[in-house]
């Protein structure tokens, strides 16, 4: 009922994997894909945070009835294995399923989700002094320039 097709290509020491998940059943399914590779798993990121559904071991996604979804990831490992470990539909959990652990825990609200939705606070790389790039905890004061660039509307209320 659930088809998982994986295609990989390797460039410059990085393996790029494309996974197509097809749900041929007549109801919406939640699918858990476990990625095993001898190396780090690099999930797609949104604002520096792994995209919704991704964690260190794989991804959990929902596929509409009769629908197809694609996901991709990268890894420095030369071989990857993607396995469907759990599928959950309206009728409950299919036999091989255990817990389809998502990336969120019960401790709402989810901090990753906040970062994904609101975006980074960090100053752009171009604003970071080059000569200090390697020096952790340098003491160069930055308030003046940072304030000038903040543009947070301070002047409006004056």
């Amino acid at each position, binding site marked *: 009922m659930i088809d998982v097709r994986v295609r990989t290509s390797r460039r410059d020491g990085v393996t790029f994997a494309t996974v197509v998940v097809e749900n041929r059943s007549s109801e919406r399914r939640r699918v858990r894909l476990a990625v095993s590779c001898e190396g780090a798993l690099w999930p797609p990121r949104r*604002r520096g*945070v792994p995209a919704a559904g991704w964690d260190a071991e794989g991804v959990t996604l929902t596929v509409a009835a009769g629908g197809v979804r694609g996901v991709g990831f990268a890894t420095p490992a030369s071989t990857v294995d993607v396995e469907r470990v759990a599928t959950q539909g309206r009728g409950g959990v299919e036999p091989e399923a255990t817990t389809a652990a998502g990336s969120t825990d019960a401790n*709402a*609200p*989810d*901090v*990753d989700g*906040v*970062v994904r*939705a*609101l*975006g*980074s*606070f*960090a*100053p752009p*790389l171009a*604003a*970071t*002094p080059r000569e*200090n*790039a390697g*020096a*952790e*905890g*340098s*003491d*160069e*004061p*930055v*308030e003046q320039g*940072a*304030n000038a660039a*903040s543009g*947070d*509307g*301070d002047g*409006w*209320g004056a």
Partner: protein
Amino acid sequence: MILAVAGGKGGVGKSTVALNVADALAATVVDADLAMADLPGGRGPDLHDVLAGRASALEAVRSVAGVRVLSCGRTLAGARASDVRRLRPTLEVVEREFGAVVVDCPAGMAADAGVALAVADRVGIVCEPTAFAVPAAVRTRALARELDAGLAGVVVNRAPDGLDVSRFSQALGAPAVAVPESDAVASAQAQGRPVAREDPDAPVVDAFATVARTLADGATDGRTRSDEA
């Protein structure tokens, strides 16, 4: 209790309120303004180091002028190296060790403000008595609600004498407390000290005590200070 002191706009006095409220509550104040810190610092590891995984939260807490402070670094490189998602375990550890925590939130609505609100269990919104202040406060309240931080009170900072703060409490649905414009506050803040330590007889010390009581009471949507009197 993790109390976030927030307010959409910069320069309204969030850091001043956070420091003085923390002093009144004998709480630890955490400067979560990662890009533009302005609470007193000192030597040793700071919040940038903690959020970059280079120091533990507890070793970065110091006593500054009698107040426990977890200050924040002032470098852009430090801000870039910080993983704001580590703010949750950091604040939780500090709360477990030292009790009540007051978080000085950054202006704006980016992830650093959002994560602080997501971790806090209540929020006090600071605004100035200007026409632009209320919409900014309403936006901050909307974000705080989205993130489950109940609005405990509104601090109308640098209020002129005799200001009626009831329109702030009506607009925002939480008790509003005025903190008068005060030279004593300005000079104490310039020294990085709470005003109660610098000038304990200043009238504004009582105002901060009222603010601290109100915010420590927790979220009381719909109730105003005058209803209680």
